[in-house]
């Protein structure tokens, strides 16, 4: 990397950081930029700029995401030493689900920015916004404490697998692919709604019957056929097998790999749907801001997993599976004609993302070794039960 390029990247990082910082901290962004410019060594200047960027950008993003909520809690300049904002920021990081909610809101909002810039019908924007409200409402409703048991959890997971099988056999078919169900004039994709929650729940709760459910889900996705979802299942289970291998995971993983191979062998001739498929690249052709919104919104989906991985080591399996499955969905959307989760038009992924948050721990470290054991009363935590009960 030559000298001017290093200087250019350093200055760009400083400018982006300065622009992202809240108004009360803009002078600090300027200070970092000037300080960087004064460092004689180019490599050292680049390192200084990038470290500053990494150190302050998460806070800048958190400030933007939490600003609407902060305005509800009182006045005063946000973030700049404001204990309300700092407390909100730290409280958010300690709660994987709250981090996920903030990520969902941010991703959907960025998706709306993309769709508005791309000229999508207003109806699409309304549907995505409504799906977010519905997903968050379900999250709030199903997340409340209710008594439940292992049998109920198992039954619910198997029922969800049954729903996926039913979709493959009886669902709305387009060009040989049966992935959708028609509801009130809308097409929803059950696999996008159910599979993420099933995967994260399976990461925390495993037994013979839930494994049967996952195998059935693999068969259903192979039959639909849906490479993106089959790949999501295989990747999620592979990550789980790496982190916590047992006979249940291995059996489910083998089935999921077989299912994914089956989808790859079969031709997928579905054409790209505007504002749904293939927007990770095409959004930059619309406008640089639209592209940045799509990329930024996609990256936000991984935030709960990254935060949880770093701050909640007892539940790393759940966070890793969560991150892997949504990363798989993003990669699938980049490689083929599959829905671009949350930032693209479509309600299923938005609801699915919200529901998958229910299977994450409520508080970092709160369920110490829950994910390290096979399914038992102890690790069938209330959130999972509510999720599965509600979806069954």
């Amino acid at each position, binding site marked *: 990397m030559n000298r001017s390029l290093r200087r250019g990247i350093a200055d760009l990082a400083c400018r982006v950081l300065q622009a992202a910082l809240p108004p009360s901290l803009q002078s600090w962004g*300027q200070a970092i930029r000037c300080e960087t410019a*004064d460092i004689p060594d180019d490599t050292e200047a680049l390192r200084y700029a990038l470290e500053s960027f990494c*150190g302050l950008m998460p806070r800048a993003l958190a400030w933007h995401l939490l600003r609407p909520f902060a305005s509800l809690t009182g006045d005063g300049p946000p973030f700049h030493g404001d204990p309300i904002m700092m407390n909100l920021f730290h409280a958010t990081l300690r709660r994987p689900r709250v981090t996920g909610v903030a990520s969902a809101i941010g991703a959907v909002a960025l998706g709306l920015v993309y769709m508005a810039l791309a000229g999508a019908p207003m109806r699409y924007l309304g549907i995505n916004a409504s799906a977010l409200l519905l997903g968050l409402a379900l999250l709030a409703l199903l997340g409340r404490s209710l008594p439940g048991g292992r049998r109920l959890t198992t039954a619910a997971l198997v029922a969800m697998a049954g729903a996926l099988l039913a979709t493959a056999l009886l669902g709305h078919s387009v060009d040989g692919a049966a992935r959708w169900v028609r509801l009130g004039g809308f097409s929803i994709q059950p696999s996008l709604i159910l599979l993420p929650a099933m995967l994260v729940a399976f990461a925390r709760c495993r037994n013979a019957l839930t494994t049967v459910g996952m195998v059935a889900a693999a068969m259903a996705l192979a039959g639909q056929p849906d490479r993106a979802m089959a790949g999501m299942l295989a990747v999620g289970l592979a990550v789980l097998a790496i982190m916590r291998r047992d006979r249940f995971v291995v059996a489910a993983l083998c089935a999921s790999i077989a299912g994914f191979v089956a989808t790859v062998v079969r031709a997928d001739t579905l054409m790209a749907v505007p504002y749904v498929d293939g927007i990770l690249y095409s959004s930059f052709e619309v406008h640089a801001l639209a592209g940045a919104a799509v990329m930024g919104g996609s990256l936000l989906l991984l935030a709960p997993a990254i935060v949880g991985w770093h701050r909640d080591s007892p539940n790393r399996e759940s966070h890793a599976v969560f991150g892997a499955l949504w990363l798989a969905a993003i990669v699938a959307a980049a490689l083929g004609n599959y829905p671009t989760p949350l930032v693209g038009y479509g309600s299923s992924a938005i609801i699915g993302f919200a529901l998958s948050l229910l299977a994450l721990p409520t508080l970092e470290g709160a369920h110490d070794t829950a994910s390290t054991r096979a399914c038992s009363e102890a690790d069938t935590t209330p959130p999972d039960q509510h999720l599965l009960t509600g979806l069954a």
Partner: protein
Amino acid sequence: MVLAALLHANGEWSHGYELARLADVKSGTLYPLLIRLEAQGYLEAEWQQPSEGGRPPRHAYRLTASGMQLARDNLPVDSGTPAMRIRKAAA
């Protein structure tokens, strides 16, 4: 270490890069800390014009009286190591 480095400056103005080196912290750690210290009244900051032309102005920092007290009350347990590091880096 950042407080120790600022205390070691003994009321003189310090700059970000210099502080990061003296305290042996990354700038991504340094600036959030400086921001917080300033917001809490432990640190004052000012813009300084460059001594030679063509250079950018620089943001400079020093502890306030309460900041000095805070730094004295929170000196690292291993007091020899940071001081040695500061002297070494300053040399």
